[in-house]
């Protein structure tokens, strides 16, 4: 899916505006919304890394558990082994990547729906192990009092990461760097091979592509970044427990990704941002807390009925209209949906 990669003048202005918004936004919202903003930014990394995993055509239900692996890993490295927190975060992400490597061997024997459910089972086993074994994992209560990100004190400048606004900037930097890496991976030979395996797996195998290894690679890279997101999450909330990473959370990630759309890198970001704003800001401000899931469910159904190719299809159509070429085409949105 080669797209224009150079940035035009309009694009540059767009990026500048986006940068200003991203930097200014914590100062425009309330304290509780600042906390939400941190979680939203972490979730952006979760859904974008999830999309990378789905590029090979396999939808995993273990992604949130991989996030949990990073969170638990990082928490244990920091708390039990005394790693400095930044190092523990990276170690946690690597742990998630290693677990994904191991799980690849049974999981990628399956395809399609079987992989979906198989990955769910594998993830759920991992989660139940955290729940059952109190010794390192703390059982159902999980791990508490995880050390926070160390404050930076340079004499003239003092940054305390317990303040959600400051933690937001930290998360923003980590997430932006991660997004850039994920983007580069997709545009590289490896990423193109992911697409090839998705659309023509027999053909690509016939020209010598080891589909198993590339599926594993996509799963491992995605799990690494999910793990990183989990680590950011653990040291922010200072507590992790098995229920945070259960299938409900996974369902939300799936919803964000599909409502946003998966044929473009920004699709899942649109999904998670739009749905979080709708749920947490608009529906909360109406003040109908009890009916919120119902309205959310309705929005979900309407979105899937009327925007089957995701929110990104709106952007694609708008851009095509601006460029003045009629007949907007979403090349693989429908085919993704058919999967």
């Amino acid at each position: 899916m080669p797209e224009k990669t150079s940035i035009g003048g309009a694009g540059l202005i767009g990026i500048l505006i986006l940068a200003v918004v991203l930097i200014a936004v914590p100062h425009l919202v309330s304290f509780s919304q600042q906390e939400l903003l941190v979680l939203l930014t972490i979730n952006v990394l979760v859904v974008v890394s999830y999309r990378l995993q789905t590029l090979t055509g396999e939808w995993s239900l273990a992604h949130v558990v991989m996030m949990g692996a990073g969170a638990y890993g990082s928490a244990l490295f920091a708390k039990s082994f005394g790693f400095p927190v930044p190092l523990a975060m990276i170690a946690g992400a690597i742990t998630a990547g290693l677990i994904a490597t191991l799980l690849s061997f049974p999981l990628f024997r399956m395809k399609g729906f079987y992989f979906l459910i198989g990955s769910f089972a594998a993830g759920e086993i991992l989660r139940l192990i955290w729940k059952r074994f109190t010794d390192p994992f703390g059982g159902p209560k999980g791990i508490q009092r995880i050390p926070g990100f160390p404050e930076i004190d340079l004499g003239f400048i003092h940054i305390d990461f317990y303040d959600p606004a400051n933690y937001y900037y930290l998360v923003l930097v980590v997430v932006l760097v991660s997004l850039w890496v994920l983007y580069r991976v997709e545009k590289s030979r490896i990423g193109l091979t992911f697409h090839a395996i998705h659309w023509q797996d027999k053909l690509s195998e016939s020209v010598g592509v080891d589909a198993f290894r590339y599926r594993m690679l996509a799963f491992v890279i995605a799990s690494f970044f999910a793990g990183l997101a989990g680590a950011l999450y653990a040291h922010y909330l200072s507590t992790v427990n098995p229920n945070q990473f259960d299938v409900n959370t996974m369902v939300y990630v799936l919803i964000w990704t599909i409502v946003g759309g998966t044929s473009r890198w920004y699709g899942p970001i649109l999904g998670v941002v739009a749905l979080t704003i709708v749920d947490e800001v608009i529906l909360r401000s109406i003040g109908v807390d009890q009916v919120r899931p119902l309205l959310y469910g309705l929005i979900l159904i309407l979105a899937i009925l009327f925007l089957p190719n995701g929110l990104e299809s709106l952007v694609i159509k708008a851009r095509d209209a601006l460029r003045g070429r009629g007949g907007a085409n979403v090349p693989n949105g429908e085919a993704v949906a058919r999967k």
Partner: protein
Amino acid sequence: MPDFLLQTVFNASYAASYMALIAVGLVLIFGVMGVINFAHGELYMAGAYAIVFFYVWSGLPFFVAVALGLVFVGCLGILMELTLFRPLRTNPLGGLIASIGFLLILQTLAVLGFGLRNQNVPPVSQGRITVGGAFLTYERLYVIIATVGLLTALYFFLRKSKFGWALRACAQDREAAALQGISINQTARYAMFIGAALAGVAGAMTAPLVAPSPYMGHSVIVTAFIIIIVGGIGSLEGAVVAAVLYAFVHTFVTTFYDGVIANIVGLLLMLAVLVVKPQGLFGVRERA
């Protein structure tokens, strides 16, 4: 000790029964419509709440309430087919997401109508069968009888009746069935009614034993997925066998160790089946 074993066998038979009802409905829907109904656990929940409404609140006889629950949940199934699955027929992943939306709506309606707390359903019967030191309450026995009866009826319906033939034809190949003059829409409606109604009956019959709550569907759907995978996704017979297998393994491990270990063992069982025989015990080739 033999009493203890017999008791566990009784418990497992009961668990196998209602799980089989739920799993068979899920398989039927998947077979005909090609969509994973994530809201199936909530249809089960709706069946249980039908008992709260018709039996506890309205004071109707229990079995009348079960029949009303069956029809009610079956109609919910038809509603899902008409509003969600029909427009999304070419988009199974969309169908899955839409069913998640429907699940949220049903849960919220249950909370609004009945509150968050568990509902108490008075016992239907105090009787029990005693064999040595083990016993089986009538309530559990009714569940077993209802399951055997309904599944036998479904078997003959699918084998002998014209609609049954149409249903199986659609499950094998939708386009080819349509070319033979079978109405896909009508068949899908029947499949949704039957599939949903089976889950509804399971919920209705077990309501006095489980104290219904709005979120009771969650654990059930996970178990049902495990069962349909072990049995082979398109296979009704497989679902029944897998339900029995899973219920026995789960009940015995729960009795001898604990519930969490039992869940892990159940998932490992499923993973083992997937790795060794990815199409499940009774599975046919994967649908395209």
